[in-house]
């Protein structure tokens, strides 16, 4: 079942070693501003007909104004993907962990769409087939436009999971460190008092 997709070009891939790496698009959920440039770039360049429409995008941003939330949702390329339920063998995972759909094999049964816990698979009624993120041959357009438009925020990043873990860990460390420092100050003032 796990086969290496032919369309994946080594030259476009920032990680060329060929090892299994668990590629995915890292998301800084608290930084996204909800501009939808990722959705519109993806749909325009990947839908095949140059159509700008979030409904045809493989990445979606959900916004909730009262809470000030903007949450990008996209395939996380699970290590053990629930979407592999495909009865037509259209879903595959290459040796790097990229989960992809073979359009020629897809029968449009939508089983994968139902199985995905993140809603990352969509159905294109015109083609009668499902579609999802395939990391654009190793150079995701959503990541590219996001970093051109909002370079300071680093909302979408395409990198090794361990690098992403590290940046999250660093941020959490800063938060914890602040509270520890704060409690030290409070303690000191109590002792003095």
């Amino acid at each position, binding site marked *: 079942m796990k086969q290496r997709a032919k369309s994946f070009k080594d030259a476009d891939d920032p990680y060329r070693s060929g090892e299994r790496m668990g590629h995915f698009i890292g998301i800084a959920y608290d930084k996204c501003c909800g*501009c939808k440039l990722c959705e519109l770039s993806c749909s325009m360049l990947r839908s095949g*007909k140059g*159509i*700008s*429409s979030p409904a045809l995008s493989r990445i979606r941003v959900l916004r909730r104004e009262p809470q000030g939330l903007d949450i990008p949702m996209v395939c996380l390329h699970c290590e053990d993907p629930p979407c592999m339920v495909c009865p037509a063998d259209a879903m595959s995972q290459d040796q790097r962990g990229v989960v992809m759909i073979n359009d020629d094999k897809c029968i449009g049964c939508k089983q994968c769409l139902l199985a995905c816990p993140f809603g990352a698979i969509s159905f294109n009624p015109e083609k009668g087939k499902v579609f999802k993120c395939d990391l654009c041959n190793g150079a995701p357009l959503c990541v590219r436009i996001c970093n051109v438009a*909002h370079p*300071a925020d680093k909302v979408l990043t395409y990198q090794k999971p361990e690098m992403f873990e590290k940046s999250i860990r660093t941020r959490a460390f800063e938060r914890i460190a602040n509270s520890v420092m704060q409690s030290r100050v409070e303690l000191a003032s109590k002792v003095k008092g």
Partner: protein
Amino acid sequence: MELYGWAGKILRVDLSKETFKTQPLPTDMMTSLIGGRGFNSKILYDEVAPGTDPLGPDNKLIFGTGPVTGTIVSTSGRFTVTAKSPTTDAFGDANAGGHWGGELKWAGYDVIVFEGAAKKPVFLWIDDDQIELRNAEHIWGLDYFKTTEEVQKDVGDMDISVAGIGPAGERLVYTSCVMNEYTRAAAKCGMGAVMGSKRLKAIAVRGTKGVKVAKPGELFKIVEEYIEILKREDRWFYENFSKYGTPMFVDQYQQLGALPTRNWRETCYEEAEKVGVGPFYKKYVKKKRACQSCPYHCSPYFTIDEGRFAGTWDDGTEYEATGGFSSKVGCGDLEVALVGGAWCDKFGLDYINCADTIAWAFECYNEGILTKEDTDGLDLKWGNADAVLECIRRMAYKEGKFGELLALGSRKAGRKVGKGAEYYSITIKGQQMGMMDPRVFHAWGFAYGVSTRGGDHLRSHAVCEYMFTPEEMEKYVGSRKAADRFGFEGKGKLIFWTENIRALNDSIENCKYFFRGSPRLWTEYPHKVLSAVTGLDWTYEMTFAAGQRINLIERAYNAREGLGRKDDYLPERFYKELVPTGPTKGASFPREQYDKILDEYYEMRGVDKKTGYPKKEKLLELGLADIAADLEKRRKLG
């Protein structure tokens, strides 16, 4: 021929008969007027006759998007709302960001025209081709935030876009606006009141069809390239504006001695530091949010977590709120200004028109023209924070005699009160102005005067006068002295040139801030993205001509309503009073100088110097023969 960019459809909704009709978008309109503001202005000119009651069923409410709306073209989530304005009793439109414009485009419409008036409150639900008028009696009376929630529940989808009005629009308050995405306002000209008069509470849209782009690869490259140009050529602005948004202008204009204080008496506010961007960001702002396809994200999402306003939130708070509800009424309480802004969004009021009208009432009270009896017991001493908030609420709900008065906006309220109150209503054609003092920014002051929708800071790019170097000014306007903000030379040409550019921005539906940074952006970007999106060959000259056409159509509309040269002047205060304090003390804008600039401007605009009406030659030159014939019939040709 396959159509790219434009959806090619006008949706007509007859609210009286509850019927819908779609008609194809005329091809000649696409190339001559581009979209958004251009389409709307022409439709209004053709279909709403002079003398129409702005709040009657014969007025039309038009929502328009541009050819690039809903694509990756930077800041392309915008739309224009147009109708005859109850504020100015003449041409009126308002432009908003957010996501609603894109959503309408994805549903497959360029323009919606609302005609007639519903018998009972309704909201319109557009789900691609499925269009439905639904009962809105259960949401009539709710504030706009609740309205959005209820409409989303009614439809059963939390991701749809909802444009609508709050209690202010329902009650036909002249300072009301049309809101979308909770906090984005199409604010000017009382468009909310027009929507309220039609008993249309909201327009909910879900679009899944999308916008067809002719040259996707090329468009992606252009968009990337020009975002880089923006970052490179105006780095300081890009970084700061992304970080702070417009609230940073409080500090900037204070420094430049241009911050309107106590209803435009002064230009320098002693407590500006308290309401500046520093305290705002330190304590309240939680994150930055953006309209569709924006490379900036200027919109601060804030919450107030403690104290008597705990639980208040707002998004997209602007300079016009943090300054309008502070310096303009002499009240240095940031929290009150923030709550004022949040209430405006909730009630569906325009920051500028609302704050200005309140400042007018404060000054009249302090000058003894209004008494406590007139204000229903409110004490409007400069700086009374609680009174500011109370005024906003009473204006929105038309509560009591004083609420009714405020709801008229400062010009009409001034006329009603008399006793010299008109002198303190700082309006042009009945419209309040953006918060930059005309005496210290002459091009800006002049732009307020000649704007087709009344006092307005967005109709031209006057900011050039202190942003450009003299060399740049010489290159673009032909006068080095135009770069002096206290000077008088070259201002007419600057405003003529940038008014056309702005009409173009409003017609392809882009945000003005994207173009602020560099003249390269506004002379190259529009026609390049138009070519990539629509597949037609656009040139700078074509887009510039469209800008002229749109301005002249609007001027013709106003001429038909009887507005002319006499209405293109600033409020008396700015000719009579010198700036009394601060770094710009003594600055003035003499009327003779203003007259000279006006003559220079009329010459270029193709408008008669005596009457201010458009000239036949210019109309014919721009291909507006039908308008020339109409004006000739009505004897309104210049």
